[in-house]
């Protein structure tokens, strides 16, 4: 069975690439897949933080690339899951410490040991982005329903199209009430503009900040409403046809008004 190498990118920073990578990885691992996450953001590494693994870093991506250690020595196994490991980026180096060939080769080696390799891409479209994309055979573009984010995502989609990689889209941090009031673009609008296959809609959730600060992927929280969302994304990635959650239900306020009206 060939493993899948997916880069998670966006162009715009801060839309949720790292959180998405961590949670997708966790959700896949929970389904029994062997997952390796690679942080390609050299110099600004965050994937380890978001998973709470920063204290266990001994070796990093650049040291693997420079042959100072083996890949398996650098991988950190997340003890909360059966089969989830991460390869952290280097913090004290710069993005040019590694080139596309080296990165692609590491991804290949990781792919030999996993069903899924997810690559957390840095923001922007410079060297870091090019390296991260070099290793992947598919891409997931993450965007928020805001004009600046979509514009950047569009630029990235263009670059990915140039490289012929299949692209899927996750719309992150959706605030349905803002869509309803016309202050945020709807998912349909976003898909229309970007013209890319939609694979997930993730609503905004204030718990995410706290869980990333604490290093606990939100899918570990059974009560989180985001957990079933990530599960659905994973099922779609695996090829299932899963209907999208309808966020267009009346929100709390709507329900209150209805309740009042009902008397």
């Amino acid at each position, binding site marked *: 069975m060939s493993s899948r190498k997916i880069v998670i990118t966006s162009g715009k920073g801060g839309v949720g690439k790292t959180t998405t990578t961590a949670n997708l990885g966790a959700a896949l691992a929970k389904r029994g897949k062997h997952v390796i996450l690679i942080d390609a953001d050299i110099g600004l590494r965050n994937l380890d933080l978001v998973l*709470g693994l920063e204290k*266990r*870093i001994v070796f990093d991506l650049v*040291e693997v690339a420079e042959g*100072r*250690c083996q890949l398996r020595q650098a991988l950190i196994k997340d003890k909360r899951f059966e089969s989830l490991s991460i390869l952290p980026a280097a*913090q*004290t180096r710069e993005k040019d410490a590694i080139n596309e060939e080296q990165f692609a080769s590491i991804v290949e080696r990781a792919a030999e040991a996993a069903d899924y390799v997810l690559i957390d891409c840095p923001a922007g479209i410079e060297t870091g982005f090019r390296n991260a994309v070099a290793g992947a055979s598919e891409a997931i573009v993450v965007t928020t329903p805001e004009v600046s984010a979509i514009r950047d995502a569009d630029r990235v989609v263009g670059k990915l199209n140039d490289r012929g990689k299949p692209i899927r889209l996750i719309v992150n941090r959706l605030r349905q009430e803002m869509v309803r009031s016309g202050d945020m673009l709807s998912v349909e609008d976003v898909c229309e503009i970007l013209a890319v296959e939609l694979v997930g809609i993730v609503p905004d959730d204030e718990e995410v900040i706290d869980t990333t600060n604490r290093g606990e992927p939100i899918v570990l929280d059974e009560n989180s409403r985001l957990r079933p969302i990530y599960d659905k994304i994973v099922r779609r990635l695996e090829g299932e046809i899963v209907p999208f959650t309808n966020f267009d239900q009346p929100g709390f306020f709507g329900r209150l008004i209805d309740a009042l009206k009902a008397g």
Partner: protein
Amino acid sequence: MALLRGKGLGLELVFAGRELGEAFEELEARLAERPGFYRGTSALVNFGNDPPSSDVIVRLQSLLNEAGIELRALTGASEIESLARECGLAYEPGAVHAAPELARRRALRPRGDIRLSESARSLVADFAGARADIADRRRRGEASVPQLELTEQPEPPAPERPRATPLHVVEAPPPTLYHTGTLRGGQTLHHPGNVVVVGDVNPGAEIVASGDVLVFGRLAGVAHAGAQGDETARVFALQLNPTQLRIATFIAADGENAPRVRSLPEAALVRDGGIAIVPFDQIDQLEERGIS
């Protein structure tokens, strides 16, 4: 066994069984004491069972060239042959020296799969002076945790090297590096010797020292003391809250949960085969009491 000796029409340099940094030190000293004496000779270098990296050969060549010596060939175990070829040198199969030395070194190698990063290993070449510093401290009876009776891991005490070198190598211990100001994420301080930071060390910052590490502030990054292998090295901080601590070949990190609130300056040191943290005012008691 002497480092440098005559062999046939040329010289033999015996690096086998020697610590690389020290060997270079001694060689430099020997060449310096009689400049020009060896000019025009050729040298055969014996690496025993341990082929070094090719940049060691480059360094050796340049050192020898300065003294007018031609590096002719390498000798030692068969692994040396490919290295010689790689460097364009001849290879002479030779008797392997220093087998007992190697066995001793192998026995001292750290167990487990945690290894030093290259940044720590690369300090080894500069540490000749640091060794003198450490040995000096031992001699003065300073700052050392008493040896513990470890039943599960019988580690032979590192023998004091026979001082064949002191005639030539009189190296002052390296100065302690003082850094004033906060060390920010992504910044590193690597130094053979002790390191003192007057300021904070933020998460993402890294200190690698062959000696002790002292932080007059909050240590939140990664500190590696005794990076060259000195297990008596220590890490001190006004607020010891590191992402990770390393002393010699030991690595430790806090448990998963929220960091303890530190109100006292603390020290980290090797004890019982791991890294222990003690409030710094209790270090004296440790030493008085012996093992605790």
